[in-house]
């Protein structure tokens, strides 16, 4: 076993260089146990990092033109460029609504009450079902002859069926149906992580319920809300099946994933598809970083509840 001897200046009295070298690494936490990470590292390198960088490289090798011509093509074409705004126009309001609606509802439900488990189980259902089935249900339910429009007609709230599918609203609803329970359950778990005695302490100091919420619970909840927003946003941003099925994939709900998909699987232009995927990932990461950066300015220590 060949081991480089450490420079004389740093040598401390020690019996053998081998032990010394091992000790120095072990002191920093490096030893044989780290091999347990090897399969996961291999996995992440081969199946995530390599394809990602391969795609990145591919995006700079377009079938024709200079290295940036695929990006130029994407941003130069208003029809393609517009997918960014279409996607953000769907994802941002949907994620925001999901998180904001979750807060008061989770706040009410954070205590124990009968049927709480049932409510949470019911909420898990749409997440489990996934976007494809939700889309199928929405087509039936919100369609012009679906139950929703029938109820509106029966209640004389409208004279003719409201168009709710094959447009923006169909996709938006599908994002709410799957996204809201997701956001709600996360917010609920964050809320129940906040020690309830903190609010009681605030009450003994004379704070009313709004003051308690505003000055104690909300600040402790904010980091959780930021994380929830990020995760909900990722879900909404990658909207694909519902945009095709309940939306108008050629028009107002032509989101960026559709553009990427079409480039790859309809035009078989992989460099262009990779370029679009990179743009998509970049925009998403920018928004998440902004939120997470803002989150670091918040108090993120222990909130006293369950660890």
């Amino acid at each position: 076993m060949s081991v480089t001897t450490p420079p004389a200046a740093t040598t401390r009295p020690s019996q053998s260089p081998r032990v010394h070298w091992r000790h120095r690494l072990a002191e920093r936490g490096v030893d044989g146990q780290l091999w347990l990470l090897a399969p996961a590292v291999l996995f992440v390198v081969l199946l995530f990092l390599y394809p990602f960088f391969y795609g990145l490289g591919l995006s700079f090798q377009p079938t024709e033109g200079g290295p940036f011509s695929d990006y130029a093509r994407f941003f130069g074409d208003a029809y393609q460029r517009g997918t960014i705004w279409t996607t953000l126009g769907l994802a941002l309001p949907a994620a925001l609504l999901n998180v904001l609606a979750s807060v008061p509802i989770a706040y009410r439900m954070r205590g124990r009450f009968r049927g709480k488990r049932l409510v949470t189980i019911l909420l898990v259902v749409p997440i489990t079902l996934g976007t494809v089935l939700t889309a199928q249900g929405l087509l039936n339910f919100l369609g012009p002859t679906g139950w929703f429009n029938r109820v509106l007609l029966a209640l004389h709230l409208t004279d003719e069926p409201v168009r709710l599918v094959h447009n923006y609203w169909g996709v938006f609803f599908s994002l709410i149906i799957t996204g809201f329970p997701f956001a709600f359950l996360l917010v609920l778990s964050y809320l129940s992580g906040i020690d309830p005695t903190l609010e009681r302490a605030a009450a003994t100091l004379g704070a009313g319920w709004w003051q308690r919420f505003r000055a104690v619970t909300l600040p402790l909840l904010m980091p959780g809300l930021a994380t929830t927003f990020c995760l909900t946003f990722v879900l909404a941003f990658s909207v694909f099946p519902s945009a095709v099925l309940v939306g108008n994939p050629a028009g107002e709900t032509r989101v960026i994933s559709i553009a990427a998909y079409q480039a790859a699987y309809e035009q078989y232009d992989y460099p262009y598809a990779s370029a679009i995927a990179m743009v998509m990932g970049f925009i998403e990461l920018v928004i998440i970083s902004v939120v997470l950066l803002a989150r670091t300015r918040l108090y993120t220590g222990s909130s006293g509840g369950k660890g």
Partner: protein
Amino acid sequence: MRVTAPDFSQLRLDGVSRRFGSQDALTGLDLTIQAGEFIALLGPSGCGKSTALNCLAGLLPLTAGSIWQDERRVDTLPPERRGFGMVFQNYALFPHMSVRANVAFGLRMRRLPRDEIRRRTTEAIRLVHLEEHADKLPGQLSGGQQQRVAIARAVVLEPSLVLMDEPLSNLDAKLRLEMRTEIRRLHQSLGLTTVYVTHDQEEALSLADRLVVLRAGRVQQIGSPQTLHTRPANWHVADFMGYRNLWPMRAQSAQGALVEVEADGFRLVGDPVGDIAPGEAVMAGVRPEDVRVDDPGEAATNTMPAEIEVVEYQGRELAAEARTAAGIRVHLRTDRRVAPGDMVALIIDPQRLLIFPNDSDEQPSGPLVDEVGTRLEEPGLVG
């Protein structure tokens, strides 16, 4: 269980050091442990005593130094091959195994014959009086019982060395006293060699043959309980060993073997620990029980007129805090019925007033354990 003859004569720690990043947790610990000895590593939290124990166990690699069992070098061996037993602060019992399986675990790891495993397990369980609980899971036992299981699990292997990491700190005060006796009894009857880590000076004094006091990763003093009690090597050790009165003063002149010290025009005579030159900054220390209370007007050496300020009832005695005319705060214990506001004379025998050199700016911290034995928070150690 048969009493094991120790299979070695001494264990030697040679400059054992451990760093965490840039922080020295333990620096140059030299210690020779004779077979059959009971050693206590004592010190406040963060002093390096647990680090020392974990290095000895092999759970932490050393940064420098070596450990020798007679002529066998052990610090390069993994913990499972050192043949030591260990009792953990929170017991660390395997929650999914019965008491019996917990105790038998080490024997099974050694691939001993089934009969022998059963025999030795049963014996060890009897030794700690848990026969009726042998088939329960650890979660069904009380803290004291769990501690007994942990001890049985460690000693069933007849280890050449038993390491104990604050084994009593999770127990309530009464149980702690009981288990203390139990541990000492097992140590003697099984002929074990024990290294015991604690921050409780009373526990260490009552259990150990020798104490090692650590502070900030360095050995402060090694000695018998008596030496540490009556003759601490420096004021830090004194602070830790129950010298609640520690007053920064200045040395004046030698008076035979004694030395006169002064602060704000107030003079005392005490017994110097080490060399002290006139004019040197010193720390004068005395235990509360060595401060005598007398009627005002008494005029022996080291008499201080003082007013009683706070009185705590502690059974036969009272613990009190008094303030002298010069403004010095004195902790004392007395069986006189004093009350706040009483004017008294406090007298300290010069032999009991130790004068330490004071080379640091640090303030004494006071003892970690109060008289009843209530443990102060020690973050990071509580499981």
